[in-house]
């Protein structure tokens, strides 16, 4: 069965610092994707970036990038030059492509506070 674990319930940084949020997962599938979302204080979930399991290159999108360690089944989200507007709850989620459902399994989230 799939499982996603985010061991850091909270995190903090100063404006301009680089932030790393960790995630580990369990899956028996070969093809899968790991997604990162940020939940705003309003409740809205915003898609940030995803990493396909079959791509050895770490994905990057703007200030967001990931460090994908497939053999350890872990992935980290890296936010460069963090800003107070980046504060919120960050969720890691697993989509197993072999099941062909598009269904996501989420971690418990990490609450990030970026201080001005």
């Amino acid at each position, binding site marked *: 069965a799939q499982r996603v674990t985010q061991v850091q319930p909270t995190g903090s940084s100063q404006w301009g610092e680089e932030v790393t949020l960790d995630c580990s997962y369990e899956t028996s599938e070969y093809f899968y994707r790991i997604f990162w979302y940020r939940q705003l204080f309003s*409740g*809205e979930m915003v898609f940030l970036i*995803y990493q396909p399991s079959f791509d050895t290159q770490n994905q990057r999108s703007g200030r967001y990038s990931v460090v994908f360690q497939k053999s350890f089944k872990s992935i980290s989200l890296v936010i460069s030059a963090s800003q107070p507007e980046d504060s919120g709850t960050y969720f890691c989620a697993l989509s197993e492509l072999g099941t062909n459902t*598009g269904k*996501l399994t989420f971690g418990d989230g990490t609450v990030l506070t970026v201080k001005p």
Partner: protein
Amino acid sequence: NAGVIQTPRHKVTGKGQEATLWCEPISGHSAVFWYRQTIVQGLEFLTYFRNQAPIDDSGMPKERFSAQMPNQSHSTLKIQSTQPQDSAVYLCASSLDITGSQNTLYFGAGTRLSVL
């Protein structure tokens, strides 16, 4: 292009009353998902539709909960005889499809249901 629209944003019901939550997916998206979020359980998958057909309702409580997608422009989640434990944020998401690179879920802002 509007995102996923959920209405109402907040709903308060008395114990035993019915609650209907509405979701309008992004135009052109073929898959619609419902999730429930609580502090204790986190984000839980409830059900999803593809091309309006119900595909997987494995996360739906067997009693009192039902979901429909009568047309491609909206889906509803109905909870009969609401109980205090149904209090949660209900999130709707849509994706272009469920396969390949098109399975990124885009979420609405959620409906916060409070059962008194």
